[in-house]
């Protein structure tokens, strides 16, 4: 947070100061034969903290902080600014691609390219910086005194006063001697690093650091009735849906809808895969509802996918075909807007509200259903998890082995669906199994899924562009547009065939003794 000189590789030490110390006192009080404080600057500064919805920057050990005319990356370990870039204004959110090309953008893109950085907290700081000078008039480090005030809708909340010590390279011992001198004058309460400071800032702003993750972090009890565990998992999936609604409405980035849809698919998929836990008559309307929900968001997601690949698609074509592609993406942009409006309308509708409300009430009902209608409800979670995973795995292997060397579209499409089902089950029940067995299995499966995923994506895109071409013929648009789409289809077809050619090898890697061994290890320990 302090404006640390860039050439300093040392770690900053933060101390919370008891009460609000007027910092000018420091200069007068700290006067010894060995050290002297020399003021460098004092300034009021607004600092706005950004992170992605899923706290990617925090996970990568950096804070993204917007100050007056620049945005900076600050290491959470050291508190030192590692990179900065000129940047105007305090937008509610921005993408790494909004910044000019350069080292900063590169580092921010490494944190996340796809997710928006959202404004999380605004601080007003009063910062005084002093040089700590030894008896040779050599600077040994910096002392920075800050008072922090959190600003939010409800007003200003004085947060804390901090003193930070930043030793220059090679002057840790001297700075430590200075710290001892300082503590004779001021009660230095807790020694913290910047990560602690960051957490306390976020807490005061009402944000829970790493409060959202689309990864399942629930710990299930293997012996608990599966009815209870399923409800826990489905309630979690519901919470993910709800958490993402706002971001979808605000159009912040594409991943809100993506996480939302994955939660919907996970819900449907496990409900269908693990039968006999709930009363099927109770489930049917919900299953229908979730299918509808998926369908209603398909159009929006499809547009998102095309727009996200915009850059890649342009790279596929020679420059003279690009104007046609621009037209295509302009249309895509328009249809996305319409799809977004219509989906948001649905999210705001009474029927959607009622649907989620009923679903939640259903999930919160703890009493076991009628044994005849739901014979597995009271079985242990681990036994049901094991049998469902085994079944889904066998289905993947069976389906995959039936695919011949030509591997037609239909077959690959079907296998992709079976893989997804297996993946959802593995992730849902991952906490029941030892990490070292489940993690490599998921990794293996992921590789296969990537191959199949690309294949199906190419097929779907080719089909979509084909339809587009047909409507173009009817409307008789100019030549360049259909030519661009044609060019694109050609490239996508090539890519699709490449992926198909890879399939046999990828599947063989999955369907081998080692993987079988891993599954046996996983499932025999029930």
């Amino acid at each position: 947070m302090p404006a640390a000189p860039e050439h300093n590789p040392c770690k900053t030490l933060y101390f919370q100061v008891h009460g609000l110390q007027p910092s000018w006192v420091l200069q007068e009080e700290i006067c010894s034969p060995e050290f002297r404080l020399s003021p460098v600057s004092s300034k009021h500064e607004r600092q706005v903290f950004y992170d992605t919805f899923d706290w990617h920057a925090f996970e990568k050990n950096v804070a993204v902080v917007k100050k007056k005319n620049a945005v900076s990356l600050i290491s959470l370990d050291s508190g030192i600014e590692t990179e900065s870039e000129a940047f105007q204004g305090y937008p509610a959110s921005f993408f790494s691609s909004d910044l000019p090309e350069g080292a900063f953008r590169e580092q921010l893109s490494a944190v996340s390219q796809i997710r928006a950085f959202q404004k999380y907290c605004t601080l007003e700081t009063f910062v005084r910086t002093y040089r700590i000078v030894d008896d040779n008039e050599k600077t040994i480090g910096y002392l920075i005194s800050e008072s922090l005030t959190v600003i939010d809708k409800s007003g200003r909340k004085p947060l804390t006063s901090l003193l930070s010590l930043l030793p220059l390279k090679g002057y840790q011992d001297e700075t430590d001697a200075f710290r001892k001198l300082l503590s004779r004058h001021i009660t230095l309460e807790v020694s913290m690093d910047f990560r602690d400071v960051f957490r306390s800032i976020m807490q005061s702003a009402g944000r829970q650091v790493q409060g959202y993750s689309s990864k399942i972090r629930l710990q299930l009890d293997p012996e608990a009735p599966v009815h209870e565990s399923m409800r826990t998992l489905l309630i979690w999936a519901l919470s993910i849906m709800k958490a993402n609604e706002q971001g979808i409405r605000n159009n912040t980035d594409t991943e809100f809808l993506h996480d939302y849809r994955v939660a919907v698919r996970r819900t449907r998929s496990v409900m269908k895969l693990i039968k006999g836990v709930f009363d099927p008559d109770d489930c049917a309307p919900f299953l229908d509802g979730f299918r509808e929900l998926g369908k209603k968001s398909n159009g929006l997601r499809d547009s998102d996918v095309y727009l996200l690949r915009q850059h890649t698609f342009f790279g596929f074509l020679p420059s003279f075909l690009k104007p046609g592609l621009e037209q295509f993406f302009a249309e895509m942009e328009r249809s996305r807007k319409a799809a977004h409006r219509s989906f948001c309308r649905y999210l705001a509708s009474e029927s959607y509200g009622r649907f989620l409300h009923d679903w939640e009430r259903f999930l919160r009902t703890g009493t076991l259903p009628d044994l005849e209608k739901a014979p597995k409800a009271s079985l242990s979670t681990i036994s049901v998890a094991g049998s469902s995973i085994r079944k889904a795995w066998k289905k993947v292997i069976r389906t995959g082995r039936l695919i011949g060397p030509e591997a037609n579209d239909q077959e690959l499409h079907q296998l992709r669906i079976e893989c997804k089902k297996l993946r959802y089950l593995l992730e849902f029940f991952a906490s029941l199994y030892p990490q070292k067995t489940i993690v490599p299995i998921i990794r293996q499966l992921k590789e296969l899924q990537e191959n199949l995923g690309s294949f199906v994506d190419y097929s779907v895109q080719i089909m979509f562009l084909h339809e587009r071409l047909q409507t173009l013929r009817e409307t008789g648009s100019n030549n360049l547009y259909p030519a661009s789409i044609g060019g694109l289809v050609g490239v996508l077809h090539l890519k699709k065939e490449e992926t198909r050619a890879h399939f046999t090898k990828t599947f063989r890697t999955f369907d081998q003794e080692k993987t079988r061994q891993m599954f046996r290890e996983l499932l025999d320990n029930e």
Partner: protein
Amino acid sequence: MKSVALYSIKGGVGKTAAAVNLSYLSASGTGQPTLVCDLDPQGASSFYFRIKASKKFTGEQFLKGSKKIYSNIKATDFENLDLLPSDFSYRNLDIDLSEEKKPLKKLRKNLEELSENYRYVFFDCAPNLTLLSESVFAASDLILVPVIPTTLSMRTYFQLTGFFEANNLDSSKIFAFFSMVEKKKTMHRDIIAEYAATKGFLSRMIPYSSDIEKMGIYRSPVPAVLPHSQSAVAYRELWQDLLKNL
């Protein structure tokens, strides 16, 4: 990483002043991280940067390689400029080196480990010809020799090039410039006229100046304190010439 050794067999020729001022210009001008290694037991460049050596630092640690070296590097008060302080135990560095299996390569090897962190390294060498100076020659990309335009100073320059030839060393690394030049002195003018075209001599000269002498009072590089002074301008031009040869 590029390394420049400031070297002269003769003392008092403006070697340390050049090391301090050129390294400052390297750090502030190129904005690239620069390190000064004070290899002179008198520690004059450390003194100019107000840096005291840590008590524990010994020549032996220098030979052990990067970890020990890193922990002894100190930041100067100038951005991108660090210094490895001199220490009196350097007196024994030669003895330590002679116990190494490959003394001439040892220094270069240790330096390679610093190359991730520094773009330019300057050695401020002691005015003598020892095993340590030889390993500095081997480790440097360029050996820069300040020469006062006097007979004695020229003589030591030729002693150095003679030493290189006698020992089959790469003398194309040696560059010289006239230092502490006083144009009003006939002898200076004559010597410059006679030797300016000598192989390895750069055309830039550093004039004699009280600004440079006063570095001992400011304890700071001249271009940092008096950026527009004649001396600062001369060093800046010299540094530009050096960059072309690095």
